[in-house]
């Protein structure tokens, strides 16, 4: 892959105000490796969280805005200036009690589906170790988060589906069942749901190719695949039939039992389900290969190398897989942020800046 000619998401400067335990911080990261060290509880992950928030517009740690704002303060602010390939774009997010405000180049914006595609980011954190064995929701979130960035139409489609689903659930919880209200939302669910299934299927197929490559690289011989397991097929008419057939069940349970909101992914190693058969080591290979695949597929779909956020992952991987991770990171050429308690264990090749976080204060090493 001609990574060197690919543009990338790169932060030239980052400024945080009243963000968790960081009262105020200015940060000028290196275009390549940024190693952020400090003891546990000092605020390393807060830095990763703030950058992730710029790209995803949500945190990976909490859905409560209050927790992100420093105690006793009214609002938190994250601002970043991106590099040349984004024409020096500046993005500012202000989180307050009233809500959030986003501005790009000083102008307030309501982010559309294209926002996520502009600033692709891949996060790799200890929670990802659940990807293989965890609940289906963990794998759906992995897939959806990637799709939000890869497909500009997906975020709105996803929200519309969620809205239709919430409406249908409201209808089926009410006695007696009002068929006049139910039928329109059955149709909406089938129409939007089948589009979601189609987007996910196409994306997983592409992801699976990169995953296969990743597993081969990391394991040195195993064959990997990602299979999409939709709860309902991508056909609108078939979807409607399922909703029809499950109506009584749904009424009894008080929620819609079938649809993309119940989909799952299956990671396979040598043709066997990793969830059922993979060893601890193979599971780590799967997670690492999944993250490698996510990065590669996003760089292809978004036409720029995603920014990479690694929150204390080296401690989750063994020596050999760490070596593969850094081999991969050296090859892709994107901007990388790594938090660790052991900076000397991080073996990067290429330009590197070291920072230290102590009680929310950031210093250059």
């Amino acid at each position, binding site marked *: 892959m001609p990574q060197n000619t690919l543009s990338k998401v790169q932060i030239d400067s980052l400024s945080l105000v009243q963000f968790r335990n960081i009262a105020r911080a200015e940060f000028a990261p290196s275009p390549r490796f940024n190693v952020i060290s400090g003891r546990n509880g000092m605020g390393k992950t807060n830095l990763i969280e703030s950058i992730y928030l710029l790209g995803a517009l949500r945190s990976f740690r909490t859905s409560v805005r209050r927790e992100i704002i420093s105690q006793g303060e009214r609002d938190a602010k994250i601002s970043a200036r991106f590099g040349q390939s984004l024409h020096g774009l500046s993005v500012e997010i202000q989180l307050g009690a009233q809500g959030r405000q986003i501005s790009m180049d000083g102008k307030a914006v309501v982010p*559309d*589906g*294209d926002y996520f595609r502009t600033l692709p980011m891949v996060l790799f954190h200890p929670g990802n170790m659940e990807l293989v064995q965890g609940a289906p929701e963990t794998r759906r979130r992995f897939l959806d988060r990637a799709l939000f960035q890869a*497909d*500009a*139409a997906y975020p*709105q*489609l996803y929200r*519309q589906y969620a*809205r*239709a689903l*919430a*409406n249908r659930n*409201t*209808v089926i919880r*009410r006695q007696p069942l*009002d068929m*006049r*209200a139910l*039928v*329109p*939302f059955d*149709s*909406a669910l089938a*129409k*939007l749901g089948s589009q979601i299934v189609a987007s996910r299927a196409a994306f997983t197929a592409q992801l699976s190719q990169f995953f296969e490559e990743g597993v081969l690289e990391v394991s040195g011989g195993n064959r990997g695949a990602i299979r999409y397991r939709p709860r309902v097929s991508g056909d609108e008419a078939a979807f409607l039939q399922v909703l029809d057939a499950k109506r009584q069940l749904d009424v009894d349970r008080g929620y819609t039992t079938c649809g993309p909101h119940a989909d799952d992914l299956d990671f396979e190693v040598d043709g066997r389900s990793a969830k059922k058969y993979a060893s601890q080591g193979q599971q780590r290979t799967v997670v690492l290969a999944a993250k490698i695949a996510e990065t590669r597929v996003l760089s292809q779909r978004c036409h720029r190398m995603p920014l990479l956020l690694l929150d204390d992952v080296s401690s989750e991987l063994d020596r050999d897989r760490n070596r593969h991770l850094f081999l991969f990171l050296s090859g892709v050429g994107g901007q990388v942020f790594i938090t660790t308690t052991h900076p000397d264990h991080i073996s990067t090749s290429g330009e590197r800046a070291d920072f230290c976080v102590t009680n929310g204060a950031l210093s250059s090493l």
Partner: protein
Amino acid sequence: MSSGTIHELTALLSRLPGIGKRTAARLVFHLLDADTDYVRHLGATVAALPDKIFRCAICGNLDESNPCHLCADPSRDATLICVVERIPDLWAVETGGTFRGRYHVLHGLLSPLDGVGPDDLNLALLHQNVTAQQVREVIVATRPSVEGEATALLIQQTLADTGVAVSRIAAGVPHGSEIEYTDARTLERALADRKAM
């Protein structure tokens, strides 16, 4: 004028949508400074609203006559009905000037999540009109949101027994706009709903 009146008017104005206490107070003090004829005219017009404006018993439009001037206009095609969510939507279609049929105002969209069910929409009257007026086509002009689409399907369902043709307005790239600046989801729908040439 006692300050009690100022407070009372401020409280009344701040009940209007989009108007908070501060804006309400600013409006009151503006009125106190304004030409008295204007203030009296404004007051009298507001006071007359409940006695002058009626909800049309045929289409749900709000007008000074009942039936409204649109339903009463014999030059309009009574066999063609355009269904809209709200009165501003009716005005928007009417401003275009090309639609010469009649309207039907729902006063809402089907949204159980927000507590709006089929019986909260002005549908019984629509069914009655379609049957009584020998309507040939009902055009549903609700917005292309989840609730707008669901409402369109509800209307189709409600009118199924009348045999009337029900159609839906097209959704896609707005006229005079650039493809380049059209959002991805709109373009996706526009491509899916393309027409043969």
